[in-house]
């Protein structure tokens, strides 16, 4: 079983990101489970959401403490929250930032991208969740690009779906997906 923890701020769509990833993973042919850290969500407050991936039915219900993957939607969280806590050796952290943060942990793979820039250019709003899912798909190999597109088109309608698909593809290509 592999586990993902998403860090964001209330309003950035971290819970939606977890749900989209779980749907895409299911469409890719594995068992998946997505759930939020059940907080009293306030816009701007640190929030977490989780996804599990497994080849068999998932029974475990605890929160994720030792993730294989971490997504950080907002790099300013790093000074408030230990986003790398428990990240497994060899695990992958995907961080939305203009420049690589200092003091990154060793023994993990840190990938940075300016998802806000991509989101602003493609979507016209600084909502980075679908862009970061594209990066996650490329870096982790947990979800297939076609399955992600299907999940996005289930969730969003019309041109909004097109834009979110485009944003996720741009991040996917930027991270070197399919390579």
């Amino acid at each position: 079983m592999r586990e993902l923890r998403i860090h964001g701020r209330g309003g950035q769509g971290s819970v939606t990101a977890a749900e989209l990833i779980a749907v895409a993973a299911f469409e890719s042919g594995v068992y998946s489970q997505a759930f939020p850290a059940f907080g009293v969500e306030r816009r701007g407050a640190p929030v977490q959401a989780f996804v599990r991936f497994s080849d068999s039915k998932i029974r475990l219900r605890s929160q994720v403490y030792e993730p294989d993957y971490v997504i950080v939607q907002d790099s300013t969280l790093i000074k408030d929250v230990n986003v790398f806590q428990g990240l497994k050796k060899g695990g992958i952290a995907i961080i939305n930032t203009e420049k690589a943060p200092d003091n990154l942990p060793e023994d993990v793979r840190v990938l940075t991208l300016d998802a806000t820039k991509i989101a602003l250019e493609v979507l016209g709003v600084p909502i980075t969740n679908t862009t970061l899912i594209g990066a996650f798909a490329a870096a982790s190999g947990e979800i297939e690009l076609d399955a992600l597109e299907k999940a996005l088109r289930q969730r969003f309608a019309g041109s909004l779906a097109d834009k979110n698909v485009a944003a996720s593809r741009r991040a996917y290509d930027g991270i070197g997906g399919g390579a």
Partner: protein
Amino acid sequence: MLQITEGSHAVAEIAKFCRPQVVAAYPITPQTHIVEALADMVANCELDAEYITVESEFSALSACLGASAAGSRVYSATTSQGLALMFEVCFNVAGMRQPIVMSIVNRSLGAPLSIWNDQQDSISLRDSGWLQFYAEDNQEATDLHMIAYKVAEDHDVLLPAFVCFDGFILSHTYEPVDMPSQEEVDAYLPAFTPYHRLDAKDPISMGMYATPDYYMEFRYELERAMQRSIDVIKRAGAEFAEQFGRDYSALVESYRLDDAEIAFIAMGSICGTVKDAIDEMRDAGKKVGLAKIRTYRPFPTEELTRALAGVSTVAVLDKNISLGSGGAVGTEVKAMLAGSGITVLDYIIALGGRDVRKRDIAAIVDLADKGVGDMFYGLRTEVL
């Protein structure tokens, strides 16, 4: 068809497929997604039902009671303080033998205010005469609604039913659920045939007052119906297994209990985490198992006693506390196993949404090994 969906949406979908004619509910976290979805379904003409909007849970269940007495299949959903506000009506629904099915999205009770999960809400209604089913995952939550209607409406039972599933932990989780089609649900669950109903052409009265000459007999009949429901649940579960391949013919699910020395007893979503922890402990040579209670009312005394034969210690995980006594399930298990020689230890756990990890389950086995129990597990002593 296997699909991935949020627990609340799976429950709303199966509620729709059960073809309720009347839905009355009042939104409350974490039940809201269910009743929002049902309101949409009625508005979109996907569900041919009367959706009664009300100003409180008391009115919601009162409207349900009237609709059920008039001969309709009725659905509602609530949680926590909402269920507490229904307390009086719950006893009336059972006393008038109306087979209403209500989803309980389990949540703790205030004060202090908490929106998070434990099972204090439904446990506190244990004496109300409602059947109580508990689901481990969203598949079971979905399936148990069909079974609940079938059992509740059986003329040998005629009791209302709670289908309980853990708030947030299941209700807000996306996971795969094998959702039956409308045709499959229709094949399993026939239309509601009321035993008696309010009819202006053939008037009867329900919920009359009973003098001391009659009251006890009404309560006795309720208890008899509860006892008869055991066989009806087994039969409905077996029929379900035959049609859908998932077996709910037992009121208690045994997990790795053969040769177990320590057995857990638990209800709801915690059972999944317990099973994973048991697999790890078994790999390390610990003889541990689980008796999962699916039906808390009627209490499965006979099945549970049989499942636990041979174990030396039972560790009961109670997501509730009967203040001044102990965990509600633990207390009953102690009474049930009195004189058996089996040690029963109770652990109050996960109140108000405190997370439970596999290592907590392993730690409880260590405590049980030493005979340490009848305690709150996982207290933050530094804040006491």
